[in-house]
């Protein structure tokens, strides 16, 4: 039976079990929107193509399934560049479909033509310009296979208009045909047995071990087995920004987040460690600080599915290429065998007590606001956290509010934290929260945003209102680009350059209402809890709470860019205790 390329495209997406896609129609992709009318796939019409991309990411974050975005050629494709790069940096499985001018017009600078595959080459795991309708089903199958296996990432399929219009004979490629079409793609998932044994031995011998969990633990769904390893050997755990929730914050072994704004305990434990067991983590500069001064006495076990991460920043003593979950299962097995065989773990009780000492001496801390003074952003977060229904998903933008979110929330379940880690994309929060809510409609989704971030993508709340996606947005509104302001205060002699967002404009409540949301403004501490309770009780439309917070609040602890983690800047109230960090 002959069908059009457009019908084949939609059918292929259905075959890949796509239940929802985020998109925006336009010239070249028009043919694909016609068969969509009778498809089972729910299409969410966004207000800007960037929103479609971040929604697809948010959806993928919380469901583990690839997010799908479909937009037209030219400016629509370039608007997708930011989310693609974001997904690439954070290894988010995503499939993007872009329209392209007809094959005969390619290269002529036709209307809305751009070199989409050229532009997105370095920010996608793979991309492909499909030149014939017959090739579409295989291209789509390859895209989903590549996006979701190995190290996940975004894949873009660029489809010229005539390819969508031409007719073809439907054929759905078999697994074997997909494999054969990708002769160079065989991700290693099983770790090397000798390396695994070696790792287990080092873990038993270590006196100051730390489990360093990265986003790969969540991607491979390894949280449970990793917890078994931690509990078997009582090894302290740090969870990076991409791994928040991979290990419960409430667990006695959890030291919290390491890195530039990590807890003093997590940062210092890594610095003093004699063995870092890095699982699905990539030694990002925000974690290591000055690399040459990072965890100098530590041996490194590095488990990562991407061989290029091994030795990219720090040379591992035991490199293990493989899927975090599969490797962790094998490591656990090897540990049990060694212990059953009479091997004894080194005494790490002194190390444990040092770590707990740091935790006790250096908790996350802020000065509560004096009576009548401005609200503290940390207080707002604590209140949202304490009023949140079980399993609430937290989504943040990028900046101070992101760091406070990561610090003050208690993440006790995997897949309850969505944020832009590697790329640091301001404006991520609102659309990503919408995608997360679409993926998990059963859960409460709170987006925590800054007033700077919110103004970048807020129009997607119209999408949320119209498509009945009732998210909640808490704006920590300090009328400043807070993180930049903090750097200017600390590192540029308080010379504030272009960071004042002009307090008072816009009126976020009116703006929220204009977009079909409930808007609530909060100025004083006693208004916080009632506002949150009200927001939590509204489920028929999005809610925006404008928390007017203290302008000059800073994020602590902090390791200055390029500084050693030893030189962590503590909150002023903890400075006199600094010597305990040794």
């Amino acid at each position, binding site marked *: 039976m002959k069908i059009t390329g457009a019908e084949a495209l939609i059918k292929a997406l259905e075959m890949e079990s796509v239940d929802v896609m985020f998109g925006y129609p336009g010239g070249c992709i028009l043919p694909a929107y016609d068969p969509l009318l009778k498809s089972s796939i729910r299409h969410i019409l966004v207000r800007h193509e960037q929103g479609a991309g971040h929604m697809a990411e948010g959806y993928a974050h919380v469901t583990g399934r690839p997010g799908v975005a479909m937009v037209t050629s030219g400016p629509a494709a370039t608007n997708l560049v930011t989310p693609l790069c974001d997904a690439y940096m954070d290894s988010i499985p995503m499939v993007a479909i872009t329209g392209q001018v007809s094959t005969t017009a390619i290269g002529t600078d036709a209307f809305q033509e751009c070199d989409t595959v050229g532009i997105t080459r370095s920010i996608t795991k793979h991309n492909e310009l499909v030149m014939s309708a017959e090739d579409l089903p295989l291209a789509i199958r390859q895209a989903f296979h590549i996006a979701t296996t190995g190290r996940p990432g975004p894949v873009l399929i660029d489809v010229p208009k005539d390819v969508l219009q031409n007719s073809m004979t439907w054929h759905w490629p078999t697994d074997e045909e997909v494999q054969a079409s990708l002769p160079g793609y065989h991700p290693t998932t099983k770790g090397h047995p000798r390396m695994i044994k070696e790792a287990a031995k080092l873990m038993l011998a270590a006196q100051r071990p730390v489990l360093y969990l990265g986003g790969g633990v969540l991607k491979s769904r390894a949280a449970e087995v990793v917890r078994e390893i931690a509990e078997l050997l009582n090894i302290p755990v740090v969870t990076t920004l991409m791994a928040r929730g991979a290990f419960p914050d409430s667990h006695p072994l959890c030291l919290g987040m390491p890195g530039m704004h990590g807890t003093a305990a997590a940062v210092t434990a890594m610095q003093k460690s004699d063995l870092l067991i890095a699982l699905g983590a990539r030694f990002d500069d925000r974690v290591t600080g000055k690399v040459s001064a990072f965890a100098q006495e530590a041996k490194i076990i590095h488990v990562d599915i991407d061989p290029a991460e*091994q030795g990219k920043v720090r040379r591992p003593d035991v490199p293990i290429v493989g899927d975090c979950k599969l490797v962790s299962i094998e490591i656990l097995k090897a540990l049990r065998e060694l212990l059953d065989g009479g091997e004894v773990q080194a005494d790490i009780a002194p190390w444990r007590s040092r770590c707990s000492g740091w935790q006790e001496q250096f908790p996350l801390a802020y000065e509560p606001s004096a009576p009548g003074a401005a609200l503290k952003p940390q207080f707002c977060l604590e209140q949202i956290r304490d009023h949140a229904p079980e399993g609430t998903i937290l989504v943040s933008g990028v900046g101070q509010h992101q760091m406070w979110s990561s610090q003050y929330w208690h993440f006790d379940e995997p897949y309850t934290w969505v944020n832009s880690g590697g790329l640091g994309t301001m404006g991520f929060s609102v659309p990503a929260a919408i995608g997360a809510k679409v993926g998990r409609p059963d859960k409460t989704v709170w987006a925590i945003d800054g007033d700077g971030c919110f103004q970048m993508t807020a129009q997607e709340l119209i999408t949320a209102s119209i498509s009945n996606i009732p998210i909640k947005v808490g704006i920590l509104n300090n009328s400043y680009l807070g993180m930049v302001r903090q750097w200017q205060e600390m590192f540029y002699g308080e010379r504030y350059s272009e960071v004042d967002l002009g307090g008072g404009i816009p009126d976020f409540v009116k703006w929220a209402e204009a977009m079909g949301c409930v808007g609530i403004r909060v100025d004083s501490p006693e208004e916080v809890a009632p506002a949150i309770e009200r927001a939590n009780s509204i489920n028929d439309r999005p809610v925006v709470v404008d928390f007017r917070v203290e302008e000059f609040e800073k994020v602590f602890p902090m390791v200055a860019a390029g500084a050693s983690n030893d030189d962590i800047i503590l909150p002023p109230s903890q400075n006199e205790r600094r010597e305990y960090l040794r």
Partner: protein
Amino acid sequence: MSTYPTPQRHHILSVLVQNKAGVLARVASLFARRGYNIFSLAVAPTEDPQFSRITIVVDVEGTTLEQIVKQLFKLIEVVRISELDPQKSVERELFMATVRTDGENRGQIVELANIFEAKVLAVGVDALTLSLEGSPEKLDDFEELLRGYGIVELQRTGRIALPKLDREAHSRAVKGKAS
């Protein structure tokens, strides 16, 4: 004058790729994006038209080389990468140059070409175009000697390479079969 990288830093990567549109762009943009420098590059289809071989000479230290190889291998269309040890491979390159001559030194240049077994491709009133195929080192030597006469234009293809055949291994295998 550009000379070939020093032996410690010069590495030949023989990269087997799917013969598809855009693959060379992918490889080249990966080098640009990660800040690696390509010294020379040669691309052509292999005996199997589904695949092409890209021979890349890079000028880097060991750790960077490891990253290059790993990053290259992440490209979906890259099927196999082998690093060819210059000691254990045969390398060839083609060189063409147009050299200025006056009547007097034409004979000297032709003589030099004969010594190197180069070919005279074209003869003009005041210039000669020569070609030479051989190892890159031999081409370097020839280029240096020609330079004194005045090179008008020069073009080199970049090297291609294959592993040297291991005669011992082959004979062992044959022996194994016989017994």
